[in-house]
Each structure stands twice: as C-alpha cells, then as structure tokens.
C-alpha cells in the first residue's frame, strides 16, 4: 500500500480510539479505510473525513464520536496559529463580523486564535494546557448576539418574514463556534500530551452511552430525540418476541384428538393458542433532582411504547406520590417541559424537598393499591437513596406480592449500591434490581424485561 509514512499509524490510532468508544471496527474496515485514503489523497481534509467516516462507521449515532476523534488524528494544523496572539477586543470584533457573514472558514481561524490567545493556563510543562472553558469564559461569544443582529439587519434591511428567525440562527452559529473552540483546545492539548489518551478521555461518548446521572443538558436533549426511534425498534423486537412466544408450546389434548383421524399417529402437532392479553404496566418514577434525567427519559420511552400495552399508568414521587399519566399525554408531548409540568401539576413533596422512598412507596400501596393486579408489571425507577429514612419494606413486599413482576431499575453503578444513604441492597432482596446507567442499557433491559 502506497500511503505516506505515518498515515498508517495515524489511521490505526484513530481506529483504536473509535474502538475505545465502543464503535466496532474490524480489520477489514481498516483496510478499506486505507484504500479510501489512497483513492482520495491527503490534499483535501474534508474529503478524507467523509471517506474515513464512510468506511469505518456503521451507524448514524457514531458520527458524533468520529468527528472529534478525526480532528485529533488528522488536525487542521500543527502548533499555534501564525502571528501574534490577538487581544480580546480585536477577536470579538472579528468574531462578530464572521458570525454576521456566517463565514465558516473565518470562524475556524478565529477559534484557533482565541484558544491560542485566551485559553492557555499554567506555566510549568506538566501542569499547563489549553482550556476551551477558559477561552469561552473570557471571550463571551454569547454576548455578541445583539451586535451581530444589528449588523445583519443593517446590511439586509431586515424587514422580511424570515428575519424573526434571525436570533435563533445567530445562536446556532455561536453554538457552532463554541464547538470549534472545544475542538481546537483538544487539539492543542493532544499535541502536548498523549494523543491516544486524549482521544479516549476528552471526547464525549455517544449519547446512548452517557451515564444518565452525569449527562448534561445537551446530551439529555439528544437522548430525548432518540426516544421515538428507540421505541420503534423496541416495538419491533417486542412484536418478534410475541410471535416467537405464540409458537412452540404444543397443545397435547388437541394434538391427540387430531391424531385419531390418522390412526393415532400425531402427524400434525397443534400449537397452543395464546390469549391475546396485552399486559399492563405501572411505572413508579423518582423525579427528584438527582435522577430526574433518567426518569424523564424512561417515562417518555414507555409513553412512546404505550400502544404495546393495554394500560400504562405512571406515578411520580419525591417524598409523596401522585399519578402523572395524564401529563404524559401523547398529543401534548413536549418532552422538554415534561419535568416542569410534572412538578407544577402533581403533588410530589410534603414537608421537605428531598426524596423519601419509604413514605412514597407506602403512600402508593395505600392510595393506588388497586392499580397493581396479577397482570401488572411494575417498574420502579430510582437510585434508592432514601436520605436515611425508613425504607418501608412492607410496602414494597405488598406491591411485589400483588404484581405479576416487579423490576427496579437503578441508574447508579452497582459498586455504589449500599454506600451512604442507599437502601438498594435491602430493596434488591425483595425485588429484582438492575443497574441501568445508559440509554443503551435501558433499551436492552426494556426489550428483555417488558412483558409480552
């Protein structure tokens, strides 16, 4: 293969980093990628990016990991940008102009200069580095909004209908610029430290592999967008499980009855008919601050799956419990405002604002006991941190006895169960408790645990 020296190492390094992020890349694909490099050449970086993405990736979500990793292994430049480090005022002026023109190339250049001029910290070789946070904190691109709007309107006249969209457009451009700064800071750091290390650590994993408990707003928003596709996938998987479950068991009585016409030889096995019972689902969700991201996502997912069940009831609690099924209504689906709606529309807290599983579960058993019957599968979502109060095991036992199955999904990693105020181990003795830290795990659990 006639790829220039060093490119092979970079390519395998890139593949290694992708693998570390859970993208499964085989040797065959790596070879294809090398052939792509050969066919496309190294002159145009964007071509190379698309070529490698086409050969190495297999799914849409993986692109979010690929782009930052690619930027590390095939950087746009090396070292500091040419020229003197710019001062803040000058940078802001040029940034405002570039944002007004939506000039991508200029924005990328400015990001490099900004990180160089404003992002450096530390002085000794071990502790210094480049920080995108510090760069953005000093540059404050978000405060340029009014200025950019002014200059765009001045230029275009600004009376058309589409100009009411201008603010959002500028915000999107600023957001893109923040991304560029982050990329640039990672590149500069990677030049100092081990590139492989940075690629593994500093690149955010795909949204479905982010811990619910540590996900930031953007990641949660990204997750919410995956609810519908995930629900569709799960629905197909559930349907397949139903089909399989409907086959297989032989109805002995009817098989023998049928065999009489063939002289007692059971030529045609008769399979047992399944009564088409759609199971009922009850969801008990801890929506207190610490785990609300997890609960919101799961509630939306179950709501999206609602046509798979005869009845879905959702209850939310912090230290008091209330039914929120109506708030999840499909027609009004506004996933972003969900937690706000639940907070304002339901009584979830009593005297204090911290979660109390014992009281909430006790109240559920008392007030909504009839929601749970022999056909009901109950899911409890929460980290089982009861703030040192009584876990109220009799209530859980009561629910577990009445329900068909009870599953507890805990967004904390297993190693932390039982530490501090966590009552996870005692609950786990009564009901099945599973670790569910990421959307991917949740998808697998839901596909496996949901009753058919």
């Amino acid at each position, binding site marked *: 293969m006639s790829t220039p020296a060093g490119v092979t190492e970079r390519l395998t390094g890139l593949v290694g980093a992708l693998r570390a992020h859970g993208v499964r890349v085989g040797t065959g694909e790596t070879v*294809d990628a090398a052939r792509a490099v050969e066919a496309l050449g190294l002159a145009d970086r964007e071509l190379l990016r698309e*070529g490698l993405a086409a050969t190495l990736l297999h799914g849409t979500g993986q692109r979010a990991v690929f782009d930052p990793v690619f930027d590390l292994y095939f950087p746009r430049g090396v070292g500091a940008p040419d020229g003197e480090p710019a001062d803040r005022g000058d940078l802001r002026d040029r940034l405002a102009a570039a944002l007004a023109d939506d000039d991508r190339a200029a924005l990328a250049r400015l990001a490099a200069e900004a990180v160089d001029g404003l992002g450096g910290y530390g002085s000794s070789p071990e502790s210094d580095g480049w920080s995108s946070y510090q760069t953005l904190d000093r540059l404050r691109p978000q405060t340029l909004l009014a200025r950019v709007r002014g200059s765009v309107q001045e230029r275009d006249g600004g009376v058309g209908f589409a100009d009411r*969209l201008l603010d959002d457009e500028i915000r999107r451009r600023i957001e893109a610029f923040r991304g560029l700064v982050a990329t640039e800071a990672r590149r500069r750091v990677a030049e100092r430290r081990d590139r492989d290390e940075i690629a593994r650590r500093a690149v955010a994993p795909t949204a479905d592999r982010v811990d619910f408990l540590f996900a930031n707003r953007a990641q949660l928003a990204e997750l919410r967008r995956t609810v519908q596709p995930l629900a569709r996938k799960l629905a197909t998987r559930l349907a397949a499980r139903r089909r399989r479950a409907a086959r297989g068991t032989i109805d002995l009585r009817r098989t023998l009855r049928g065999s009489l016409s063939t002289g007692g030889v059971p030529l045609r096995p008769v399979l047992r008919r399944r009564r088409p019972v759609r199971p009922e689902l009850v969801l008990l969700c801890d929506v207190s601050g610490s785990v609300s991201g997890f609960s919101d996502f799961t509630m939306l997912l179950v709501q999206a799956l609602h046509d798979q069940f005869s009845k879905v009831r959702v209850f939310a609690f912090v230290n008091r419990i209330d039914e929120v099924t109506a708030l999840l209504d499909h027609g009004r689906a506004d996933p972003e405002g969900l937690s706000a709606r639940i907070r304002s529309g339901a009584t979830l807290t009593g005297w204090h604002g911290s979660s109390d599983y014992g009281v909430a579960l006790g109240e559920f058993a008392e007030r909504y006991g009839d929601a749970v019957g022999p056909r009901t599968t109950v899911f409890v979502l929460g980290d089982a941190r009861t703030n040192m109060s009584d876990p109220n095991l009799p209530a859980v036992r009561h629910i577990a006895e009445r329900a068909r199955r009870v599953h507890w999904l805990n967004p904390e990693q297993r190693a932390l169960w039982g530490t501090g105020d966590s009552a996870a181990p005692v609950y786990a003795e009564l009901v099945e408790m599973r670790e569910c830290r990421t959307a991917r795990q949740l998808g697998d659990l839901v596909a496996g645990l949901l009753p058919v």
Partner: protein
Amino acid sequence: MFPSVDDVSARLAETGYLASRQVATTVFLAARLGKPLLVEGPAGVGKTELAKAVAEVTGSRLVRLQCYEGVDESRALYEWNHAKQLLRISAGRDETWDEARTDIFGEEFLLPRPLLTAIRGAEPKVLLIDETDKADVEMEGLLLEVLSDFQVTVPELGTITATRKPFVVLTSNAGRELSEALRRRCLFLHIGFPEEELERRIVRLKVPGLGEALAESVVRVIGALRAMDLRKVPSVAETIDWARTLLELGADTLDETVVRDSLGVILKHQDDVLKAAAKLDLDSL
C-alpha cells in the same frame, strides 16, 4: 466509473441531483472500492433518488428490489415458472425422464428476480435495494451472499457469478436495526438535511420560477422548523412542495398570512402546526 470526487458532483448535478460533498465522496468511494452503499437518513432527503441519479449518469440499467415485510427468496432472487414447466411436461408425453428433467430446469423456465437480474449479463447495472429495514432478518442472510461475493447459487443450474459487478445501493429508514454483518459489507452514508446553501440551490433547481429572495426565506424558515422539537420535521421533499405551493399561490415574499395558510404543506401533525405557529409568532390559527 468516476475519475474524481468533483466529477461525481458535476455529473450528478447534470441529472438534477445536487449532491453534498459527503454524498459525492461516498459515491466515489463505493465505485472505486466496489462495495455496496448503505444509505440511511430521514424520509424525503433523496436516498432513492441518489440511486436513480447514479444509474442515469453511468448509463446503467436500474434494477430495483423493493423490500417489504415477508419479501422472500422467490421475490428477490429467482423462481421457477411452475405453470410453464407443467405445460412443457404435458406437451412432451413420450419423452424419457432424463430428457424432461434436463429440459424443464433450463434458462427458459427461470424467472429472474431483481437480485439475479442485477448479477447476470454484461451491461452495467445499478441495483437499488429499497427500504431494506422493512425486510425480515432472514432476507439479510440472502443479501449477505449476494453482496459479498456477487454470486447466486441456483441448485439446478450451479453458481452464477457476476461478470460485471453492479453498483449496489441499499436504503434504510432505520425502522429496524440492520445486522452488523450486513453493515460491515457496506460503505455507510447518512444523508441528513442539507446545509442552507445547498438546499437553496436544490429549491432553485427544482422550482425554477421561484425568486431568489423567496427561496432564501423558505429555506430559512424550514431550517428554523427543523431546529424545533417537532414530531415530524419537514424534509427536503416538503421544502420543494412548499416552494411549489408558494409559486402556485403567487406569493413573492413570505408574510404571516401566506405562511399560516400553507403551513399544512410542511407539517403533518396538528400539534406540530400549533407549536410552529407559536414559535414563528403567527397569530392563532
């Protein structure tokens, strides 16, 4: 097939398909590496159109396999023409068994379906396997054999190997996760919504009567709608529909009334319409 990526863009553009850099690069690589191309993306961004455009620029015949739930070997690969075989048997009553047997499993009685058609013959072909996610998992196994070796085994005739590899395009709406094995054999291309500038060019190309300023406003509004959290965001197809509608309505600029009256063309759910109206500061509908 193509000497360079720019050549791909230019030639696709001649047929009326404006490809992004990403699309052109991937098509170029697929042709160069001889691998099938798996195209995913939301509905209405031109996945199927891409295959048609490639067929047109390369002067190939387009062979299309539309997948649906329950599509099977006899619909996708080949089938024996049973009725004709029976006729043949009853026509030659006095033949020996050996004569009849060799005869009725000949070319004449074979009904080739898209996959076999794409492999046989020397003329260049583009094989489009549309909506692969709709087909059952068993179908994927069949595709694996065809796509990796470009050969098909018919027990009575032997193995048929492609004399000329077709350019294969598989499309998927991600309704079902395709198996890893199938993905591995393909180059992956995700066609998302185009950048503003490209979409403007698409609108101008497809709806030539539309003024430049109006085209720009249309694309900007669509871009804003896509940034919203809607149940069904408008796709390129909807953009073009909307542009056509505006042309029909005789609008030369966008204003509240026009947008309000034609929002139904781009948004297909009532709650989406309400949400968009609120966001765009339209008066109540």
